[in-house]
């Protein structure tokens, strides 16, 4: 993937502060909670660690980043494949993790969706799933890279160099750290490069209909287009 040279002009300005690319590595822990029906899933969701909620929503999206359609989160997948509760699966799959800036809020939303479904479908609570749901959690270690960007050209070059783990960390996981409906790239472009419209455009890239590699390409294209 070659990056076009950016022309001289206002977009070649230097950032007030550079962008340091980090990346991230995750180790999967097997947790105690298991669910053999939707009632037990609810109990597990109330008791499990924040790391579990993160694993089965944000992280699983990263693990399946190559799928353009049909994969949203592990809870939706299990409701569909193991419980055959299509209506519930559809509601859970519609969760967009970009709308959540905290794990507790995301947890509450998932619980609310399942509770509402079970109010209308009380028999589903005890109906045995074909396979249990096993709660896992992520141990996350942040890794600095040597890639640094001080202007747009270096930023585009950096985006090409770093791994997809890094793209996910800055573009998707970031909103939990920032507590904003945004991402590290957009924040830097807006605050450090005074490129608000470009920052907004990046933040609108659809992560559910694109692979992470597509996301990387789209960000680079948007930077080039901004020229």
């Amino acid at each position, binding site marked *: 993937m070659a990056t076009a040279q950016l022309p001289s002009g206002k977009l070649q300005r230097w950032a007030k502060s550079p962008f340091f690319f980090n*990346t991230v*590595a*995750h*180790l*999967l*822990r*097997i947790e*105690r909670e298991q669910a053999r029906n939707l009632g037990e899933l609810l109990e597990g969701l109330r008791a499990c660690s*924040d*790391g579990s909620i*993160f694993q089965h929503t*944000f992280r699983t999206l990263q*693990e*399946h*980043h*190559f*799928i353009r359609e*049909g*994969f949203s989160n592990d809870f939706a*997948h299990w409701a569909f*494949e193991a419980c055959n509760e299509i209506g519930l699966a559809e509601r859970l799959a519609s969760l967009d993790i970009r709308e959540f800036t*905290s*794990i507790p809020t995301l947890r509450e939303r998932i619980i609310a969706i399942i509770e509402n479904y079970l109010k209308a479908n009380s028999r589903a609570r005890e109906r045995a799933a074909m*396979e*249990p749901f*096993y709660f*896992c959690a*992520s*141990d*996350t*270690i*942040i*890794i*600095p*890279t*040597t890639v640094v960007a001080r202007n747009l050209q270096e930023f585009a070059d950096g985006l090409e*160099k*770093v*791994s997809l*783990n*890094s793209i996910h960390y800055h573009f998707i*996981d970031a909103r*939990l*750290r920032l507590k904003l409906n945004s991402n590290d790239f957009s924040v830097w472009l807006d605050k450090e490069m005074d490129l608000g419209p470009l920052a907004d455009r990046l933040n609108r890239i659809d992560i559910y209909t694109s*692979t992470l590699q597509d996301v990387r390409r789209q960000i680079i294209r948007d930077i080039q287009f901004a020229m």
Partner: protein
Amino acid sequence: MKDQIQEKAAASATKEAHAATGTEALRERRKHPRISETPPVPPPPPKLDDYVPIIGQAYIDELRYLAQRLRGKSLKMVNSTSVGGGVAEILNQLIPLMNELEIPTKWEVITGGNDFFEVTKGFHNALHGGEYNLSKDAKEIFLLYNEQNRQRMEFTEDIVVIHDPQPAGLIASKQNTRGKWIWRCHIDLSNPHPDVWGFLRPMVDQYDAAIFSSPSFARQLSIPQYLFYPCIDALSEKNKELDESYLNKVCDDFGIDRKRPIVTQISRFDRLKDPVGVIQAYKLAKKYVDCQLVLAGGGASDDPEGAVVLKEAQDEAGSDPDIIILNLPPWSALEINALQRVSTIVIQKSIKEGFGLTVAEALWKKKPVIAGAVGGIPTQVIHKLTGVLVHSVEGTAYQIRYLLTHPEFAAGLGRNGYEHVKENFLITSNVRRWLLLFQILLGTAHPSGPEQT
């Protein structure tokens, strides 16, 4: 004009004759496949940089960074066999990479008499849910050999990894050592014999951490449990890229027609892999679509039950000239690689399965996979996204028909499957998991929560 017609007719007749001869030759070859009788010399293990074209420089840099934090730390792996079996294969791949990352890694193998290995084989089957009478003698033999090995071995390393139940008793040395101890369980403990598990569990609880291949294989323990998927090596003989000429040679050796669809199952001749069910599914599908079926595997030469299952498969195949059954020797990695690569569809219709890494091998070759929804297979095959899961002969037959008549959908499954393996089931992913776990246990890195900066 008449001459031209005659020439054309003659040419056509010759072509048909050649085609008939070719088909005859293929059929003849199927009766007497050319199977290599001597093992090839194994290639040297790959270096980390050899993986750059596969996973990218950035991922290799990340591994080096993680390893840097472990400089000066040492590691020991202990298992019960140096050759044969999945664990030895994994260690043969892993240890050179760890040493290249400057984490000195030793591999030691426990020793024992026939009585010890008879007991551990019994334990193995019992831990998989089989019937077993745990006698006092069996317990004593297990503990005696573990104690003998413990006296013989030194544990001066920072990390000691014990693989599977056979050497689990070495944990008795932990109290005299400074290292962290990890138990890596490669087997399915979801339904263990209570007496055998009751005997082993107090040992397992003394470790600092346990690793399982699937959450469904794990038990409730008092120690942290981690999930390491089994992995394949993209550069091994079984998975590396092969020249087209070699693929043609293998097809020629085995009488496979590359111009027609090829449906393949690679597995031991074992009832749990359901080779007879695969043939039945092929026969149902064959009513509607043209294809050849290749069943290739080993285990029929050194295992009496394997020979029986091979015979059952041959009987089920009958005289169908498009069913090619190959009983291959253990050194057939390249041939298996080639068979997977020339296949239009790969099947793994297991009835019971461990993790089922042949699925990952096929996905790595971008093949659409039809697989039984058992063991670790659903982790690899996400239904209709990275392959299709089946529960019956009829379902398998339907999916063969569907995938052969919808090649674009099949290709999409193959592409997704390849990415799934690249992300989760490659040896490099496992190196990363080991490095992370060592750091967490040794306290050289502290995991952060999802909302921490």
